[in-house]
């Protein structure tokens, strides 16, 4: 956890210029607030650090205080505003300690201020953002009983009065996508039925929702968290649905070009990389010209991918849409040289010419007539030329081009199409669903086979000779290397062979004006895509070698960012290699989700698709798409749909906010880190988490609170019934040696009695029973309160610890088994609601902080004080004080007293240092 100070000695004031040190109070609960106020009132500067978005701590969530039954919020909220308005209190909410160094009078504390994504000073707390936020999450302030939005404040009086966006980072889908499509975002918008907005989110990253919705290899689906539960989301098909949906609309919102800059940019090549780059640049306001050698736009999207996978009207429309952004498209316009473009006044150039040349197998006889190469074969077919093909066709290779060639051959009327691939079915690099489709259409797969010779007579192909292969050790690509099996050669008679063993760049192409590798691909910076020529960038297959469409689209997008920075004179790489936190699998709670398989894409029937080029995959219906969208787990919580940004009239929301590191110099530290409730599910015999009508006291507090999830109506959560007979079970996770909590939690008896009394206040006819071992009514007015509960309110007190709770399955009531030790009888008592009163424990993460300070924890896990009797708020480390429940369980008045005491002890030290300076 410790991070060494990077800033060096500069942040540490020299001895002679040191001013009166400030105090740091860690924890913004009622004790910490009191300490901060008291220190500040004595004239010292205070930093009040709180982990959650608001100060107030546990007391803010409690309904009433004991023994006076005052409203907790009514007492607390004036203090909240006192703290927030105090000129000497610097409130650091949503912040965590990273490291602490130094000693009394001179502690150097490094604080991480977590990004709230809302500018605290600008936010007025109006809540306009909340109503538009589509993401609903369990409300932890209400003990997960109710829901809140991804943009939230924990409670209405939260201080500071600013909203917080709950964003865990970047979901796996978006992190994986080379083009960075916000899949969680558009799927969330689909859930709400706002397809236009969903489409806008997709179009934010890519110009091709329809094209990529059909041909994307969908890396995102491979990483989808839902896949760990049942089956990955069908992300690709969902954005295809959005594109299809838009085409069915009567009115499509027109594109408004916003070219407002002067620097002309040239893009060479109108394939996925080029179009993507031009699109992003045009949206940034640059005038862009796309130069295309071929007569039609689209690059390999048009000339390599067959029409049954990608209908041309979809491609044309999406390219047309890019043109409508103000991009000038120039087909039939080959570029001679980079220099030439520069002379024509282009300030930046993007090379995206792709890999159009075909690799050769290098096998004897490859020049025979009847041996075709996949690129020229597909290009001819896709250009509408007539291609003669024999009856028996062999396709060599296992990539997408091979599968495409095989399926095209079937559609051209070949009687028998065999695909020869040298590795096994596992290594086949083509999209699996395409392989399945090809098999369905009758393509035969001859795996672990490699051609050794093309046989011909009179220059015409007559057959091929092949050899069987086996798999050896994995090679550099991680796939097992195929090794020929001696003596397994055989011969096949074929009329046509299509060689599809990869593509390569044209080594004489225009890209050679820049520094290239020996394969003719451009050498670029991995992050910025800059070539060695200033102002010239490259992306897509011409950089990576033949890869996927989405990778090319992603590089086009990255290049656009680089070009924008280049033209504005901003460093190209600043902050770009830094990745956002990817939401990890363990951060996504899948335990409450039911299994549901993904939607299946409907396909055209085999008979009708085998002899024509109409689209095979038919697309989702709206109903199926909505159902599929519902499966999304929403891994990152906030989906970054940015509806809140539009709703906010004060421009207070900034989704690009990052965590900040702050260094504080303080003289004293007050620890007021509070407590955590004992996890009552560790008592399986009480059935918490299994029986829905067993709740714990903090949940009960929220249930009876007027601002809680039920607006203060005390009902059973399972069926909304008003409880007629409530049982309270005491000492759950307190005074239990077997659970490692041998000490008394000190507050449970009294809050238990208070809860019992409140039950009577809510429903006077309700039977209320408390099961206890001792009642520890040790404080002022406590015994009287206990007496009052017994006599005036008629709460039954049964002395006896409950051994187990069972559920009556008919009505959801709970049967408590207990020995009434005063009457010497064993009962089975039926209640309709059971409230467990958990003990309290040291908070999580306290150990880390104490180690950071160089202190020890007491054996019970709380902070050890120097002397329990004389210095109850001094820790063993000079200059560090403790108050509230950080050193042991306390009720509210005791916590506040300790807060004041710690403040006094702290200011004594601060005064000493003030005198020195």
């Amino acid at each position, binding site marked *: 956890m410790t991070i060494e100070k990077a800033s060096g000695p500069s942040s540490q004031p020299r001895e002679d210029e040191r001013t009166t040190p400030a105090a740091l109070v860690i924890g913004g609960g009622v004790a910490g607030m009191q300490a901060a106020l008291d220190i500040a009132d004595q004239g010292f500067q205070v930093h009040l650090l709180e982990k959650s978005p608001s100060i107030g701590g546990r007391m803010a969530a409690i309904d009433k205080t004991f023994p006076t039954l005052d409203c907790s919020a009514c007492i607390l909220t004036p203090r909240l505003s006192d703290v927030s308005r105090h000129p000497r209190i610097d409130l650091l909410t949503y912040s965590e300690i990273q490291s602490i160094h130094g000693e009394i009078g001179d502690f150097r504390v490094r604080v991480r201020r977590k990004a709230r994504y809302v500018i605290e000073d600008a936010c007025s707390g109006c809540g306009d953002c909340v109503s538009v936020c589509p993401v609903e999450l369990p409300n932890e302030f209400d003990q997960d009983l109710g829901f809140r939005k991804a943009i939230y404040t924990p409670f209405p009086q939260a201080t500071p009065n600013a909203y917080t966006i709950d964003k865990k980072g970047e979901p796996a889908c978006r992190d994986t996508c080379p083009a960075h499509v916000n899949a969680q975002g558009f799927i969330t918008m689909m859930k709400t039925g706002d397809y236009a907005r969903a489409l806008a989110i997709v179009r934010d990253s890519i110009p091709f929702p329809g094209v990529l919705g059909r041909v994307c290899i969908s890396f995102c689906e491979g990483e989808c968290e839902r896949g760990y539960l049942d089956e990955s989301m069908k992300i690709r098909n969902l954005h295809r649905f959005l594109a299809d949906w838009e085409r069915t609309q009567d009115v499509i919102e027109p594109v408004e070009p916003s070219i407002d800059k002067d620097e002309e940019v040239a893009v060479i090549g109108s394939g996925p990389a080029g179009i993507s780059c031009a699109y992003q640049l045009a949206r940034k306001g640059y005038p862009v010209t796309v130069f295309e050698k071929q007569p039609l736009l689209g690059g390999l999207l048009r000339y390599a991918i067959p029409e049954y996978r990608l209908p041309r009207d979809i491609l044309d429309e999406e390219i047309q849409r890019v043109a409508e952004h103000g991009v000038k498209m120039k087909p039939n316009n080959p570029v001679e040289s980079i220099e030439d473009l520069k002379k024509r006044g282009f300030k930046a150039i993007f090379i995206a010419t792709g890999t159009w040349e075909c690799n050769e197998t290098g096998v004897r006889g490859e020049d025979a007539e009847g041996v075709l190469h996949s690129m020229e074969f597909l290009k001819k077919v896709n250009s509408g030329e007539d291609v003669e093909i024999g009856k028996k066709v062999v396709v060599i290779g296992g990539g997408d081009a091979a599968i495409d060639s095989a399926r095209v051959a079937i559609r051209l009327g070949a009687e028998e199409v065999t695909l020869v691939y040298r590795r096994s079915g596992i290594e086949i690099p083509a999209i699996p669903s395409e392989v399945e489709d090809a098999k369905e259409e009758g393509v035969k797969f001859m795996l672990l086979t490699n051609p050794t010779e093309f046989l011909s007579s009179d220059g015409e192909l007559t057959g091929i000779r092949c050899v069987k292969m086996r798999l050896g050790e994995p090679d550099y690509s991680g796939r097992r290397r195929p090794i020929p099996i001696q003596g397994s050669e055989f011969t096949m008679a074929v009329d046509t062979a299509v060689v599809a063993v990869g593509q390569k760049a044209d080594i004489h192409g225009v890209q050679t004006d820049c520094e290239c590798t020996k394969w003719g691909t451009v050498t670029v910076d991995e992050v910025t895509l800059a070539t060695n020529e200033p102002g010239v960038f490259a992306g897509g297959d011409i950089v990576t070698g033949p890869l996927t469409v989405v990778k090319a689209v992603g590089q086009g997008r990255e290049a656009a960012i680089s070009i924008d920075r280049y033209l504005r004179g901003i460093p190209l790489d600043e902050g770009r290699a830094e990745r956002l936190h990817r939401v990890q699998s363990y951060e996504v709670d899948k335990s409450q989700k039911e299994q549901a398989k993904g939607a299946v894409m409907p396909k055209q029937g085999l008979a009708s698709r085998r002899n024509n080029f109409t689209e095979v995959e038919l697309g989702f219906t709206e109903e199926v798409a909505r159902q599929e969208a519902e499966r999304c787990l929403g891994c990152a919580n906030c989906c970054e749909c940015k509806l809140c940004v539009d709703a906010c009239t004060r421009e207070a929301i900034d989704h690009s906010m990052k965590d900040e590191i702050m260094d504080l110099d303080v003289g004293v530290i007050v620890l007021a880190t509070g407590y955590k409730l004992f996890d009552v599910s560790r008592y399986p*015999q009480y059935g918490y988490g299994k029986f829905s009508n067993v709740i714990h006291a903090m949940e009960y507090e929220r249930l009876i609170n007027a601002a809680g999830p039920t607006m203060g109506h005390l009902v059973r959560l399972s069926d909304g019934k008003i409880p007629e007979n409530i049982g309270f079970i005491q*000492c759950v996770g307190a*005074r*239990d*040696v*077997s*659970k490692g909590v041998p000490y008394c939690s000190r507050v449970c008896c009294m809050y238990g009695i208070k809860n019992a009394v409140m039950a009577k206040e809510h429903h006077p006819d309700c039977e209320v029973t408390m099961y206890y*071992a*001792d009642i520890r009514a040790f404080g002022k007015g406590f015994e009287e309160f206990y007496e009052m509960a017994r006599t005036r309110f008629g709460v039954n007190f049964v*002395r*006896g*610890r*409950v*051994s*187990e709770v069972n559920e009556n399955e008919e009505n959801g009531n709970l049967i408590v*088994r*207990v*020995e*009434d*030790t005063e009457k*010497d009888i*064993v009962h089975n008592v039926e209640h309709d609601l059971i409230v467990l009163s958990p003990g309290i424990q040291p908070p999580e993460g306290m150990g880390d902080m104490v180690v950071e300070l160089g202190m020890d924890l007491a054996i019970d896990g709380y902070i050890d004080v120097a002397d329990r009797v004389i210095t109850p708020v001094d820790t063993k480390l000079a200059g560090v004080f403790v108050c509230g429940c950080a050193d042991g369980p306390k009720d509210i008045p005791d916590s506040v007293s300790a807060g004041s005491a710690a403040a006094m002890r702290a200011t004594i030290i601060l005064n000493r240092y003030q005198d020195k300076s």
Partner: protein
Amino acid sequence: MVETKGELKQPSLHHPSSDFSEEIANEPGGEDITKCIQCGMCTASCLVAKYTDRYRPRRLIQKILLGKREEVLNSELPWLCMTCRLCEERCQEGVSLPEIFGAVRKIAAREGKIPNVFKSTASLVLKDGWMLKDTYTDFIEDDRDDLGLDTDLNWDDDFVKKIKKKYFKEDKTR
């Protein structure tokens, strides 16, 4: 409410004393007796108590704590615990009732206060070598036969003889 089986004497005024609980605490297994706060978790958990009203483990512990030595040692109740240890599992004070009752039984046995039924069980084992000789009837033999099992259990009392030789005869020779 005297539950002892043997002597039925007029209940006289009992003077509470910690003598007996100290005696138990000194016996291995009985150390935790003084930790008990009489919360009743054991009785409510007890599986034996579910079937009989006579058996109330908390009350037995209470009697030990009150020093009712003779009443506890003469009672057969400490012998009824079937050591399922559910009470021990749930006891929040860390008291192990089966261990305490074990200590009680040890003291009782030393003083010859073993309930007859337990005595006869032990002698039966010593006599037959196992407890269920009487129950091994022709019917079971037939059942075993039907199931294809060997009807001859091949049981001998060698082991018990060894035990007797090792412990009982030596006892006499001493």
